Each structure stands twice: as C-alpha cells, then as structure tokens.
C-alpha cells in the first residue's frame, strides 16, 4: 500500500532539490493559509498577497525548518506575521484602530437575515475583536491543539485558552442576538 509522505518528509525532499515535494506542501496548505489570511485581513487581494508572501518566505527559509516540528504551525506562523505586518502598515497609513474597524460593511445583525448557519457563523466571527478572531480561526484550522495555536501567535498557552473561552462566549452571544433579530 502506498502511503503519502508526511510534511517533514516533504520538506526533506524539497531540500534535496525535488520541487514536486514543495508543490505538494503548497497543495496541502494553500487553502488553509489563505483562509487564515482572509479572516485576519478581510480583503481578498491582501489575503492573496499575504498567502503568496508566506509560501515564498517558507520556501526561502526551508533550511531553517526544524526537523520534527509541524509544518502547519510553521507556515501558519509565517502567514500570521505577514498579516500582522500588513495590518500595521494599514494602521500607519490610516490612523484607524484596525482591523476591528476595517470592516465597513453592515454589522452582524443586519447581515445575517436569511443566511445559512455557516454564513451566520462567519459573520459572527468577523464581528469579534481581532485577537479573538485569530484564535477562533486557528482553532478552526488546527482543532484543540492549543500549543500549536500558542506557537503560531507567540502567546502563552493560558492566554490562548482565555482568548478562546471569551471568543466562544462572544460568539454565543452574537449568534443569540442574530436569532432574535431574525425571528
């Protein structure tokens, strides 16, 4: 039976000069990285650029990838930092307190009428403050691997758990409000 090589094997193969190995890593993670970038930046073009930048940086510094580490955590961390740089640039140029105010579309209550559950949940996530939104997005991408989320964000484990707990509280409240508005 033929088994798929794991991410660590693919990194090693890419370092040995096999471009197909890195292409497989791109195929595995481009969608998730784009998702993280889009959820953080709320802009299709910027998310696209940040995703490209993340993979480009990963490719250039593949030799610094530690054997035994998780590629997903590594690439998410690179992507998250690329997004933070873009958010900081936005803040510098606009003077606004972004990204909380970046989304100028109507608030969640207006957006959710007649929307399906996934869309409603996305709208609620978008309404969260940035620090909670990122934790929720990474929870979505990595499940309950809190250590991985903490590694990506560079935060203590306890902070991640607290942020996630508060984020879920706010999500429940927002979703509840949406249901009331809808009915």
């Amino acid at each position, binding site marked *: 039976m033929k088994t798929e090589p794991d991410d660590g094997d693919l990194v090693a193969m*890419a370092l040995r*000069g096999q*471009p*197909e*190995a*890195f*292409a497989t890593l*791109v*195929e595995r993670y*481009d*969608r*998730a990285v*784009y*998702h993280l970038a*889009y*959820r953080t930046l709320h802009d*299709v073009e910027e*998310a*696209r650029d940040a*995703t*490209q930048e993340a*993979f*480009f940086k990963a*490719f250039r510094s593949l030799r610094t990838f530690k054997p035994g580490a998780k590629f997903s955590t590594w690439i998410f961390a690179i992507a998250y930092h690329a997004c933070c740089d873009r958010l900081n640039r936005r803040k510098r140029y606009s003077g606004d307190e972004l990204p909380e105010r970046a989304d100028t579309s109507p608030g969640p209550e207006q957006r959710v009428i007649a929307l399906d*559950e*996934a869309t409603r*949940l*996305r709208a609620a996530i978008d309404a969260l403050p940035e620090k909670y939104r990122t934790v*929720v997005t990474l*929870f*979505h991408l990595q*499940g*309950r*691997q809190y250590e991985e989320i903490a590694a990506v964000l560079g935060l203590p484990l306890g902070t991640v758990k607290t942020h996630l707990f508060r984020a*879920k509280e706010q*999500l*429940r409240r927002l*979703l509840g409000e949406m249901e009331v508005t809808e009915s």
Partner: protein
Amino acid sequence: MNMDEARGADPLERALLDLPLEEPPEGLRASILLATAYRPAPPFSALELALVGSLGAVALWLIVLLVLGGGSLFVHTLAAMGSALSRTFSNMAILAWVAAGGATAVWLTLFTGFQPAMRVSHRSERSAGR
C-alpha cells in the same frame, strides 16, 4: 486529541470545526508555485554574472585610464598587465595548482552528478485557465 474527539461535546465548537474554508482566488496556487518550487531558472548563473561584471569593470577602468592619461598610459598599463599575466602563467607551480583545481572540479561534477535547473511546471498561471 484528534479532530473527531475535538468535534465532541460543544455544538459551537463542532460548528467551528465544520466551517468550510474560504475559497482562494483562482490562480493563487499556480502563482505560488511559479514563485517558489517551479520558479524558472534565471537566464544567467551567478558565475556568469560575476564574470561579465568583472570584465565590464576592467573595461571601464581601462577606458577611464585612456581618457585621463592619454594613449601612452593606456599602452603602459596594458603592457604591465600582459607582463604580470605572462609571469603568472609561466610559473610551473601556479599552472600545476590550476590544473589540479580544474581536475578536482571535473571529478566532483562527475561524482555528484549533473544537477539540472528546476523546470517550469505545466501548471503555469496562464495555463491555469485565467
């Protein structure tokens, strides 16, 4: 803890984990691959660029000498360079070291095998149907 376990108790957590990922824009993967794994090899290698740059610098230096010092200084400089080169390559020890270096380089190339440049994938942005 695996994903199935993570999906366990809380309906909100389950909904979060089941949320479909955002659809990336068309051509994103192709453009990433073209910038990374399937990046076309540069038209000149670093060695070729260094060689052309060095020759250009020597040519520029000679032109500056010619303009500033007139013909005699130019001829004098060329003669000095020629004499230095001929002295260098008439030294048997230097020739032996150059020959040894060349032979080692050829032997190493045969030993490690020829490394072809990375080819461009058929999945380019243009062919991705943009």
